[in-house]
C-alpha cells in the first residue's frame, strides 16, 4: 500500500458497506475527505435528443448509398480462402479457423473488411496490399460458424465478395456469407 492509498475501511466506506460512524475515530477525517470526493461525482442526467434522428438518418443514408452497389464493381475479384488451423484435420467443435480474405482492387487506395466478427467496423480490419500488386489480403482467425462481411474500399465503398454467397441485409445491400 503506497502512502496515497486509502485505508481498507475507507474503501468500504466509499463502497457503502460501512458508515462514517463505524470507523475508528482516527479515520474520521480521512473518511470525511473521501466522502467529499464522492460528493463531487457528477450525476447530472445527460440527454441526447438528436441521437434518434441521427441514427434513423444514418440508416436511411446508408440504405440509399448501398443501392448502387447492387451492381458490384467490375474491378473487384475477390475470394475468401479458408485455411484450417490444422490442415488435414477437421476442426474441433468451437474451433477457431484462420481465414484469408483476398480482394483484387487495382484502383483502391485502401481496403478493409467489415463484418459480424468486428461489429461492422470499417476501420477495424485493414487489408494489406501484397507488394506492388493489386492484391489486398487480410488473415483472420475466426470462430467456426457463419459470418457475414463486406469489403470496404477507400473507406466508403462497400463491396460484397463476388466469390462468396451473399444475402440481402434488408437495405438493398448484399452481405457476403462465410461458413466455417
Amino acid at each position: 500500500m503506497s502512502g496515497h492509498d486509502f485505508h481498507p475501511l475507507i474503501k468500504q466506506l466509499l463502497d457503502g458497506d460501512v458508515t462514517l460512524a463505524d470507523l475508528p475515530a482516527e479515520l474520521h477525517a480521512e473518511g470525511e475527505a473521501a466522502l467529499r470526493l464522492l460528493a463531487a461525482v457528477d450525476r447530472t442526467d445527460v440527454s441526447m435528443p438528436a441521437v434518434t434522428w441521427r441514427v434513423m438518418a444514418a440508416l436511411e443514408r446508408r440504405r440509399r448509398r448501398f443501392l448502387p452497389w447492387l451492381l458490384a464493381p467490375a474491378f473487384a475479384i475477390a475470394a475468401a480462402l479458408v485455411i484450417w488451423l490444422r490442415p488435414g484435420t477437421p476442426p474441433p467443435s468451437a474451433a477457431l479457423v484462420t481465414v484469408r480474405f483476398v480482394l483484387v482492387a487495382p484502383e483502391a487506395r485502401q481496403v478493409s473488411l467489415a463484418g459480424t466478427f468486428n461489429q461492422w467496423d470499417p476501420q477495424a480490419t485493414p487489408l494489406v496490399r501484397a507488394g506492388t500488386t493489386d492484391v489486398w489480403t487480410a488473415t483472420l482467425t475466426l470462430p467456426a460458424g457463419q459470418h457475414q462481411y463486406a469489403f470496404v474500399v477507400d473507406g466508403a465503398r462497400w463491396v460484397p465478395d463476388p466469390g462468396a454467397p451473399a444475402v440481402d441485409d434488408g437495405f438493398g445491400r448484399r452481405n457476403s456469407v462465410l461458413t466455417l
Partner: protein
Amino acid sequence: MRPASQADGEIVRAVLAGDRERYAQLVERYRDRYARYATRMLGSMDAAEDAVQDAFVRAYDQLAQCKDPDKFVGWFFLILRNRCFAERRRNRTSASLEAADEVAAEDRTEGVVETAERRRALQLALLELTPDQREVFVLKHVEGLSYTEIAERLSTSVPSLKMRMHRAYDKLRDELRDHT
C-alpha cells in the same frame, strides 16, 4: 395505436420483420439512459453522442444476432461499452482539460465554486483511470448500480469489480490529493 410501454422484444421482432421505422422507438427509449454513461466514460459529450449513435447503428446491423430480444437493452449496452472502450483506446492521450470542462459544464448552475472545482478535478482524475476502472466507478457512483448489478451486466464477479474499484479509489486519491 400501439401502447407506449411495448416490450423491447416485440419491437425488435417487428424491426426484424421489416418494420424498420420501429427501431426509432428503441433508440428513443434508451439513448438518454446510456448517454450519461458514455459521456463519463469518454469525457466528452461530442464523443459520447457519436458513440451512442454508432452503437445504435451497429446494434441495428446485428439485430438478428440479439439472442433474446426481450433483453435488447443489456445486449445493446455491451455494444456501446465496446464502442466506448475502442474509442478510449484510439484516443488514449486525448483526455484533455477541454473534455473535462465540457463534461463539467452543467456545474454552472451549481453556484458553489468549490464544489464545481472539485467536480471538475474529479472528472479530470477519472480520465486518468484505466477504462476498466473508470467503468466500474461510473456504473456504481454515477449510474448508482450495485456491485451485484454491475457484475451481472458485465458478466464478471463482485470481488473482481471491488478490486478494480479499490484501485480506482487509490488512483483518484492520488490524483486529487489537493482537493480532498
